[in-house]
């Protein structure tokens, strides 16, 4: 029985076993490859997406358990129309290899939605599940502060 999902505002019918994690539905079935596989065990945050605005590890959410509308990095903004948070990432030249950054941005976006001006300690708390093997943490932190400022102006 196909399962219906709403991803970035578009309805999808997915015909896969119901225990397939959302991550692999997005990547291999729907073709949204911006969400990354890093560990499969909730230890790296590369797979972070939003379900009804909440940041979740998509490698841990079975297809049949998806409880709301899914937003992925592709739904946040596009190269021609970047969201403010993505612009902040570009302004600070955050990415190195870039592989972790979709997850970092999704986690940071959820943080800012809940807390428009997070302190450094609050950033530490919210972002510590997102690994970056390239070590871009100082620039991620700076970009979150910048994005917070920009979002307040708007």
């Amino acid at each position: 029985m196909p399962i219906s999902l709403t991803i970035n505002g578009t309805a999808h019918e997915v015909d896969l076993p119901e225990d397939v994690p959302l991550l692999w539905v997005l990547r291999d079935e729907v073709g949204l490859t911006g969400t990354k596989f890093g560990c499969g065990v909730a230890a790296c945050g590369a797979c972070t997406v939003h379900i009804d605005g909440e940041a979740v590890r998509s490698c841990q959410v079975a297809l049949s358990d998806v409880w709301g509308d899914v937003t992925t990095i592709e739904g946040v903004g596009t190269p021609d129309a970047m969201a403010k948070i993505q612009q902040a990432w570009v302004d600070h030249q955050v990415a190195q290899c870039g592989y972790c950054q979709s997850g970092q941005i999704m986690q940071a976006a959820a943080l800012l939605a809940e807390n428009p001006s997070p302190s450094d300690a609050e950033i530490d708390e919210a972002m510590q599940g997102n690994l970056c093997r390239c070590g871009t943490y100082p620039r991620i932190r700076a970009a979150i502060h910048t994005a917070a400022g920009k979002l307040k102006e708007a």
Partner: protein
Amino acid sequence: MASIGKILRRTFLIGSAAIVGGVAFGVYYVNRPAPNPLKPQEGETALNPFVLIDQEGVTLFAPRAEMGQGVMTTWAALIAEELDVELDDIRVLHGPAAAAYYNSAMLGEALPNKGYDISDFQHNLAEALGVLGKVLSLQVTGGSTSMKDGFERMREAGATARETLKQAAADQLGVDRGLLKTAKGAVIAPDGTTIPYTELAVAAGQIDPPHVELRDPSEWRILGKHHPRVDMVEKSTGTAEYAIDVRPEGLKFASVRINPKLGGEMNSFDASAAESMPGVEKIVDLGNGVAVIASNTWLAMQAVEAIEVDWGEAPYPPETDALFDVIAASFDGKANSAMRDDGDVSVMPEGATEITAAYKLPYLAHATMEPMNATALFTGKTLDIWAGNQAPTIIQSKAAEVANLDTEAVNVHTTYLGGGFGRKGEFDYTQIATKVAMAMPNVPVQTTWSREEDMRHDFYRPGAMARMRGAVKDGKAVLYDGQIAAQSAVYQAMGRIGVPSGGPDKVLVEGAFNQPYAIPNYRVRGYVTDLQVPVGFWRSVGNSFNGFFHDTFLDEMAHAAGRDPLEFRLELMKSEHAPSAGCLEAVREMSGWSGETPDGVGRGVGFCYSFGTPVAQVIEVVDEDGTIRINKAWIACDMGLALDPNTVEAQMVGGMIYGLSAAAYGEITFAEGEVEQYNFPDYDAIRMHTAPVTEVRVLETNRHMGGAGEPGTPPAMPALGNALFDLTGQRARTLPLSHSFDLLI
């Protein structure tokens, strides 16, 4: 010497070739041009193209892989500087795999000098020896060589293209070339007539390129300044394509399990349970492992896990302790090298105090953020491979062997790399993907490893041991005698690509024998351990363990001499290498180093000269209710010319964090022949809350250009250990530090 002169002249022959609708500029090498990746028409000479100008605009081929170090942008800047085009107007592509893009600077590193004392003559010789790279067909990203390698070649290509386009315009307008100017991708005549390069490209293809002089650095408008990286928007919007993201029409998804007793055989397997699992399309026998092709990567992973396998034994002692017994025993054998032997270490100077220490460092995994994967499409006659990789020519020939095809029948498509750190210079994952795809001809198959498979099938940073003996007198180091033992990553890597190796392994002792300290009696010997644990190049290679051994022992000597550890190093360094001393002075000033720290705060200094770049770091740790946090860091480096200081800063911070991750938490151990670490919970790294607040200073006094991607890693490990000693009085002689200190996790 005559032949070297000849090679030197011929190494940098810039040429051009007409292409359909335009012109390509590049380099002819040595005597016989290597096969041209752009497949010239019959009768044309092969050219190794860097710049291509046609009706579409200006395209640059970057022969080095973008692993996150910003190389695509900086290579583009080198061309744009001379060509007078804006960075935004250039398209940058990874060049196709071609022997022509050999890595000249990396081979230069193989010369028997300490590096920092290199003379101009040796420097030229090193460049000339780069031709060896062509013999080996190395198109490798590694050794922090990208910028050194491209520095001359790309600017020459840009300048030659500019002057040729001007000549085409001069012919068309009937004015002298010397009267023409260029800007923003167009030639401008004295009367203001402006002709875009795109319109001159075809005519330029018919002109012999004139000889050009490179611009003086004082005239640069792009180089030496920061430019937004060309890959940044894609990487901030989830649209950058990594190997794991390629989606050719009809793609199937596979996952793999290779014998976890590394290098062991597969005795038998039973896939009956896996065959009937959802989505499964094919079980593949790989000889030393199994793969499952399915409709979805996760379904493939579930099925491959369900296969019962009887694995053969590993070809090395199965437990960690036994491995280190073998490493320790290599000290009893003959030394493989004594790359430094100054004065006489056999005589203890009169009145000196002797100290000794032994150190031990673990095997380490690369743990790139993107797990190993590659996609292959095999038609029987051709093979296409999509992979994030650091060595496309090696991947091409090794895949051809597996597929029983000519090398030319294999196309390697290099994508962005989700981290490399040396791991993606290997070719195991592309050979595996090739075998899997051969089981389903005419269908593209993406083979993705689970994180567990990735962690447990690496070419590890070798476990290493050191025995140090030194002496201090009147507050100074008077004797330093170091012995280092480990498996040789170089021997193994050369063996894998079928190049004979042997003789002194300089890499085994780099970071120890070549440090810029004026110690009168100074010897460093290396001992190669013969073990079959797979080992390879891990960010900064030999420096990754020698940086810790050498610098930690200096810190111990300073302590024994009753001296401030920073001043102790500086005094020995000043007369030996001014740029190195400059880095130490810079971190002293930046950190307000006084040698004193308040209660509950510890500071350590670390230094390593590697890949032509000296780097000094000061690390500060704080005790917060019994838990130790890495609070701050100061870094100073001097790579001579920093082509993009912002990118250099990022590499220094990233390199340091990679080193701190290893120092604090990193360890690969073995039980029953298998790696005991499976995933990030067992092999953790620095995260947002454990990363120090960091300040970087980029100095530019060094006469020769050094690397940026790796030199930040080695000094981080001793600097952290030295800071913990300052805080606790306990000396760290083994890593990771989380075993002996209560570090914040």
